């Protein structure tokens, strides 16, 4: 064993070998660990609903001879289809529509709880039972919080949707998947809009671009740490000269370990971006009900600022939410001003409870509803497709940022407010470590409750595996975990 260490050290000590290896340190480290650390981890979600579970032919991708075959609802993803994996038919068991309080009474789940469950995988408030299972309350940590902590960075979570005109709901209006320690959901208000992101991330960048102060400091620390370890190694070799051969073996191993630490620090450092250009300051968004007409512009601004953040390598953990608490609206721009999406047969015929209930509570009653949903889904897909194609356009090493990253997209509830038949979309391959173009279909979608054996926590676990956390066996409530989606890694 000692012989092996000395040989490796001798090789690594060669200046030429060191220079040759330097560009591949990250890759070498990745292979050593099994799965690399991606450049970016991006979580995306929207509010209630997605793809009609009883009409999979309208949206469910198929695995064809030349890769995925996308249906109309998914067609905006065509430019990035080779980077996609789909997980279908999972049950979000951590979400329930009714929860028992400690005193035995019940309370309806509201969107706060549901939205927290999506990326925390945690049992909701009150620690109630699910079926016959005794399920303990989950940790409040969400997937992006977990990763950000491991990567020692601050996650950035944006939601561009406006404040509705009706009275503010408890815990804020926009929905986050972040369940706080006290059980409430609070949004990081300063990150809501493109302008707030710009103020935090880009405002202090020098005009004309260049690295951010955070990036400069990170690079400086890396250089200083390397300098410390260089001196330590040099001192170690000097001390070695006055020791016996037996003692030298101990210090040889110490010196090798120092070099390995140096490599680890370099591999984990933020890579400088060569294309970082500070974007222009986004406009101050209106803060009234009237601005709903601008919602699509707000979404576009946020997409652009997120891509700028990624291009500059400023925040490796990002979140993009299009979830909203407004009672009767999904995404205001698509509803109040989204008449073009409503099938002709349904126009002008909303029920007494409005479009919301026609669409969400009458799933499968009318094919026109499904068509309506597909149109809306296609529009929503465009939002995420723009970010994914934008990532693909950012060069990164010999490939692009999307290839080097992992993104996960999900919704806080399934079609018709159910917690069954949830679907998730993953994009990116973490530098080719994750095979893409696959559909993990866990049930036939014609039955309800098919997902009970496929808790969505396994999707979260598999996402962490893809991100380079192979040791993770549970996430959220342990009882809801089976160790990951079978066959994914």
């Amino acid at each position, binding site marked *: 064993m000692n012989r092996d260490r000395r040989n490796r050290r001798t090789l690594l000590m060669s200046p030429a070998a060191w220079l040759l290896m330097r560009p591949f340190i990250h890759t070498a480290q990745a292979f050593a660990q099994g799965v690399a650390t991606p450049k970016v981890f991006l979580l995306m979600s929207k509010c209630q609903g997605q793809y009609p579970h009883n009409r999979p032919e309208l949206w469910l991708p198929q695995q064809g001879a030349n890769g995925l075959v996308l249906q109309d609802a998914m067609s905006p993803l065509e430019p990035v289809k080779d980077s996609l994996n789909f997980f279908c038919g999972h049950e979000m068991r951590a979400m329930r529509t009714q929860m028992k309080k400690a005193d035995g009474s019940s309370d309806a789940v509201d969107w706060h709880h549901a939205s927290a469950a999506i990326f925390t995988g945690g049992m909701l408030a009150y620690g109630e039972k699910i079926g016959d299972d005794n399920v303990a309350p989950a940790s409040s940590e969400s997937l992006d919080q977990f990763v950000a902590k491991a990567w020692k960075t601050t996650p950035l979570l944006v939601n561009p949707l406006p404040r509705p005109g009706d009275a503010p709901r408890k815990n804020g209006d926009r929905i986050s998947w972040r369940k706080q320690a006290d059980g409430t959901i609070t949004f990081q208000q300063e990150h809501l809009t493109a302008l707030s992101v710009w103020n935090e991330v880009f405002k202090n960048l020098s005009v004309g671009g260049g690295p951010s102060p955070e990036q400069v400091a990170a690079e400086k620390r890396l250089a200083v740490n390397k300098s410390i370890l260089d001196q330590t190694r040099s001192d170690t070799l000097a001390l070695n000269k006055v020791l016996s051969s037996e003692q030298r073996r101990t210090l040889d191993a110490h010196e090798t*370990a120092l070099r*390995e630490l140096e490599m680890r620090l370099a591999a984990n450092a933020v890579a400088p971006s060569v294309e970082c250009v500070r974007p222009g300051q986004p406009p101050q968004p209106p803060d009234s009900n009237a601005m709903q007409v601008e919602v699509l512009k707000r979404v576009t601004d946020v997409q652009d600022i997120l891509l700028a953040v990624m291009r500059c390598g400023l925040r490796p953990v990002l979140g993009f939410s299009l979830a909203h608490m407004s009672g009767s609206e999904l995404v205001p721009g698509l509803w109040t001003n989204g008449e073009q999406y409503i099938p002709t047969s349904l126009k002008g015929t909303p029920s007494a409870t409005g479009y919301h209930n026609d669409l969400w509570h009458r799933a499968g009653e009318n094919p026109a509803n499904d068509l309506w949903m597909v149109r809306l889904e296609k529009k929503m897909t465009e939002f995420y497709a723009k970010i994914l194609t934008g990532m693909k356009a950012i060069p990164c090493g010999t490939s692009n940022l999307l290839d080097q990253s992992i993104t996960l997209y999900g919704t806080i509830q399934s079609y018709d407010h159910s917690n069954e038949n949830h679907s998730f979309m993953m994009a990116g391959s973490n530098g080719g470590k994750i095979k893409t173009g696959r559909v993990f279909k866990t049930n036939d979608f014609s039955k309800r409750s098919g997902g009970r054996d496929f808790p969505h926590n396994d999707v979260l676990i598999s996402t962490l595996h893809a991100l380079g956390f192979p040791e993770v066996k549970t996430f959220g409530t342990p009882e809801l975990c089976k160790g990951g989606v079978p066959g994914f890694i």
Partner: protein
Amino acid sequence: MRIEVRQVVIAKFVAAGALWVAGCSGKVVAMDDGAGSGGSGSPRTIDDGPVAPGGSERPGELQDFFAPPNTRARPLARLTRDQLRDIAQDLFNVSLTSQDLATLPKARAVDTTVDPSQYVEGVWNYAGLVAKGAFTNPGNLAGFCEKKGVTEAACAEALVTQVAPLLLQRDPTAAETKAYVAHYVNAAGLPADERLQVVLRALLMSPGFLFPTETAPSAPVADHFRLSRLTLALWNSLPDARSVSNFAADAKSGKATVIDALLKDPRAQRLYERIANHLADLSSLGDLGKAPTLAPAFTKQIQLALRQELAASLAKAVQGGDTDSFSELLTTNKVWVNKLTAPLYGLSSNSDSLEWVATPDEQQRSGLLTAAPLLSVLAGSDEGSVVKRGVFVLERLLCVAPPPPPANVPPLDAAAVPANATQRERLMAHRQPSCVGCHDAIDSVGFGLERYDAIGRFVTTDHGQPITGLGTFPQTLDGPEKKFEGAKQLGKLLAASTQARECFVSQLHAALTDRDSCDDERAVLDDARKRFTATGDVHQLVTTLLTNAPTSARF
């Protein structure tokens, strides 16, 4: 027949013990990691004063004072996790938790199985935490430049000049100083405090600090370096600047004065706790579960209070005052108690701190043999354990380790003895043929401690039947086995035993050095055993071991 078997087993024990006490090839019996204390010494800071110039020779007997032995033949030792923790506390007033130190391996200084990558990762994290804490905690390095009254450019050099001697145990060379200052320069652009942290982190990563070898770059060995050998043994830590100054003054009065001063320092409490932990693993105190009938008299607070008792007894013995302090250690009827622990001894006290008090019945207590912390650890939940106590006496006090129990030991058959059988009766009834050889020896000596319950209280009955404490002291270097009655007589036999005294020398040496003895120490240890057997003077023993070059050198 039984007697013959027992004598054979004991003879094997004795042979093994003799091998072990004779040299470095034997493995120390069930030694602990030497887990130190939580740092009971008063915080010292880096600003305590200037460091005495090193490299000067002392006159007279100090010419060979701690002269370095041929340590090149020894395995290279690294600072342990406990030492790093205590150094952070003593030199930088930075208290580190177990969580902070979680990445550092918990191992002896010369453990060759330590993963170097884990150690480097651990010390890198450690150095970062200490560097940050040192400049954050008030009263230490916070505002260092302002306190020093130096410009920013000169600040880093002032820091190196002040701190490097403490960590390297010598003055840094000009080239070294320049290299450390360069880190400060390289860190331009980072906040000022962070730039100084970089310098301190580099110092804490130095191999001269982490591997405090005897091969100091300049000869003769400097005062500071000599002192650090002692403080690593006695304080688990490195000397601060004030200690170095005091050392120079004390050294003029002779080496015994130096050691006396170090032993009286609050930081020496770590040594006493380390010795106590070498003798018995007391780490479970605080979490020992006892039967409901005993639990109220043995609360968590009482258990935690008991932790200090053995260390206090050892401190008294080590610091001197009694010629034959070893005998007192094993036979005295005085105990260290406070208001929480006094009732366990049939005493009452209003004191929050430990008091040295005589127990009412002189025959009930016999030094550390009957210390409640020891007896409660060597016990089950509802009664004392004759077996555990017997193993303790053989293994820790006589250095004859019984072999481990065989696999598949059948459970005791409760129906084979009456419900009110004493522990002695139950043990005798369940003696299996394959167990009798060892258990005859173990139980015979353990019976001497049967009159103490699961929390160390003196009792006279077991399940309503009278118990006597009749036992048999094994055949040892001192001669054939001897009958005795109760802990007091057992204590006297141990106190007078040559084998017990020689064993104590080995245990103390292991506690001081945190390693096995080495070949170049054989003569010194032989001499120490001879003298200690004659005198039983623990203080003299410590002084002898520490002032003799081979044994004073930890590494």
